[in-house]
């Protein structure tokens, strides 16, 4: 284990300022389309706004690390008399919920802070300042082990969903088709 300087990127969320417009969802999904901006679909967004206007709940949540397994405990929260499953506010894509997954492939989504842009686009498009971008340098202890890359995460999700055998079969089939 070593220690090195790392830039921590962070989006500060001020739920008091959010007006529930979902501009952040729009621009996030648009930015991550291939080619860039060629389509738009909030269901693919890496940020989403938990929105329950009659109970004044406006919580933008952006996608964190993929959770391979379901979490053990799921607390309930009561906000203004209505009960919410902890899941609703969780930042992870996991086998047991639909959130932060590509709607058609089921692959997990993760906020990448809009790699390549000066500023995260959801922050830029949120004109009411509910989202603020923060950067800070931090001494961190780095585990030697790499974090899994997107393909790995993707494969793992597929294994969880369909089982290893099925996945291997499919890969074999595809390989045959291509050759």
């Amino acid at each position, binding site marked *: 284990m070593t220690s090195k300087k790392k830039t921590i990127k962070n989006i500060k969320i001020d739920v008091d300022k959010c*007006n529930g417009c979902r501009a952040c969802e729009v621009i996030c999904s648009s930015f991550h389309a291939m080619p860039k901006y*060629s389509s738009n679909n909030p269901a693919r967004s890496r940020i989403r706004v938990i929105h329950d*206007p*009659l109970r004044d709940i*406006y919580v933008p949540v952006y996608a964190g690390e993929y959770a391979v397994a379901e979490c053990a405990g799921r607390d309930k929260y009561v906000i203004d008399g209505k009960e919410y499953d902890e899941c609703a506010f969780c930042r992870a894509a996991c086998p047991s919920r639909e959130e932060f997954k590509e709607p058609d492939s089921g692959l997990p989504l993760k906020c990448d802070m809009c790699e390549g842009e000066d500023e995260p686009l959801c922050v830029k498009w949120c*004109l009411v300042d509910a989202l603020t971008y923060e950067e800070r340098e931090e001494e961190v202890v780095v585990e030697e082990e790499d974090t899994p890359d997107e393909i790995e995460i993707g494969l793992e999700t597929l294994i969880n969903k369909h089982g290893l055998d099925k996945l291997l079969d499919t890969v074999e089939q595809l390989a045959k088709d291509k050759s």
Partner: protein
Amino acid sequence: MRYAETGYNLEIDLSRGNIEKVATDPKETELYLGGLGTNAKLIWDRVPPEVEPFSPDNLLIFGAGLLCGTPATGCNRTIVSTISPQTRLLAFSMMGGFWAPELKYAGYDKVVLRGKSPDLVYIWIHDDKVEIRDASHLRGKGAIETAELIKQELNQPKAQVAAIGMAGENRVYYASIEQGRSSASRGGIGAVMGDKGVKAIVVRGTRDLNIARPEEFLGLCNEVLDYIKYREEHPIPGVMPILAGLGSPQEMKVHDEKWHTENFMWGNSRERRKGFWTDEIAKEWTETMEKARTRLISCFNCPMKCGATISMPGLPTYMMKCFTKLTYTMGAFSDLDFGLRIAQKATEYGVDGFSAPQVMAFAIELLENGILSKDDFPGMPEDNEGRFFYLLDMIVRREGIGDLLANGTYWAAKEIGNGAEEFAHNNIKKTEQLPLKLSMLNPIYFLMYSTGEKINITQIEGQFPQAPFPTREAREEFVKDWIQVPDDRFKQYFVDWELRGENSMPFYPTVEMCCDIVDWQERMHYIDDALGQCAGLSSFPLKPPYHIHNYPKFISAGAGIEMDEEKLTAAAKRYRTLVRAINIRRGMRRKDEKPPANHWKKRFPELEEQLLDAYYKLKGWNRDGIPTAESLRELGLDYVSEDFIQRGILGDDEAADPTANQQAATAQ
């Protein structure tokens, strides 16, 4: 591939329970753009003038604007079109919020309802899965309540619900369709939805919406956002606060109501209350608003926060937008606390916030003037506020006198007789208007009131200042960065416009200038209504981010339809004329084109005739307001003139006009 639009409509026949996904013709989009434009085309093609509003053959169309669901800021309007029970003409009411983009993401541009369901149903659209579901358990439920119950029942917290309340179920002529923080209110479209037996349309979509030229389109969106930021920091000087910024009038934010409460009429457009706005009232109303308002909220993809969540003690939460804040208060000569409480009920019942308070005030006035008697209101409480709550209940249930009142002041007065018609004095084309009564005729507003097909003044005005600025310097300053004008001549019109003297109302702006100004304002509204753009960022405020110069670029880059200012102007004129043609075919004529008789104290009958003549001419309509065969041909609307000739609306000779034929020949 289709861009910005999905290329599919959902056609639902409620009588047979049949659901079809129908591909649309991209050529139609090029000609009529979408939203209102293509809605009007469907109504022209499929709803002949014999069809009554409450006939199974009347269509009820929910059209998402062409650019809805794209990243274009504030583009989120659902345009609902049908034949109105109140006016018997085309109604095209709009709602903001979240419904139209969700429909696009589900893969459809429109939901077209025809027929009538024998039982109360709701429609559940989830991408490719579309179902008609039983709604008998929702009968009598409030519109917001219904939305909550359905979302729970389907376990779909993200679904968007457009629903009617009891007023729609009972076919109140001014029933609205409610959708969370928005509603489509004018023209009684909620009554047609109720007549079709549809309690709600619920939609959830997770599909992609494509953009033709992505980078360019995003560049345009970013320009709009930058401009919104700039305007927030630089409000227009010299105009009243609600005109200085962008968005719908910020009624939920603004506490100072001196202007509205002292300039608009109270009761059923009865009485102006100068000096009403005292410090005491200001304090009381501010407290009421601050206690009630939980949060300012926006529509889909827009930062403007024109609405608010309202929780009155002891009442369920609801969301309010715009001017409903004052309509009930002023209709009943009451206070804001009452206004916000009754609006909660009215929103659940689903009634138009303009018409409903006017109708209730009208009933009270008939009672006070002996035209109706106490016996007509059995069990009515004595206190003022109680009487309004009572009337609202009677109306939405169509009980007793409420059954007549549910048809609006025009039809109710006719039925009641005995001088009641004198009291229904604030209608245009049978619909209640904003309670304004002014001194001197305003020729620009005269034209907008009289000829507007939308039959709602607040949705026609916008691009040109409402009054001249006091000094020439201020006017010159204003026009300096007025990039939104289609032509520099508009700047001159404004610079030369004086408060008093030769260049003042009613003879300046001149007849020609007035026509020019109104035509421009109307064009912008019609473009918005086809694209699904909120008027609050476009046609309604001064110096908006969307205008005639950037719209063609949005359409080209977004929808992939090559567009320039001329082509866009022609398209807007085409479906504007088609909207008129629908109404002409239903009997509307020049005689119907007039503001309420006592709207202005000082009238100029000759000038008014000149204004109408000149405006009709500019529009390509004959003296009776009927589009001429020649102008129809120029717009590619020959099918309209053929129909007019067949029905005897236009004479045979008008088609055989040799000059017209020649023009058609050279155009080919």
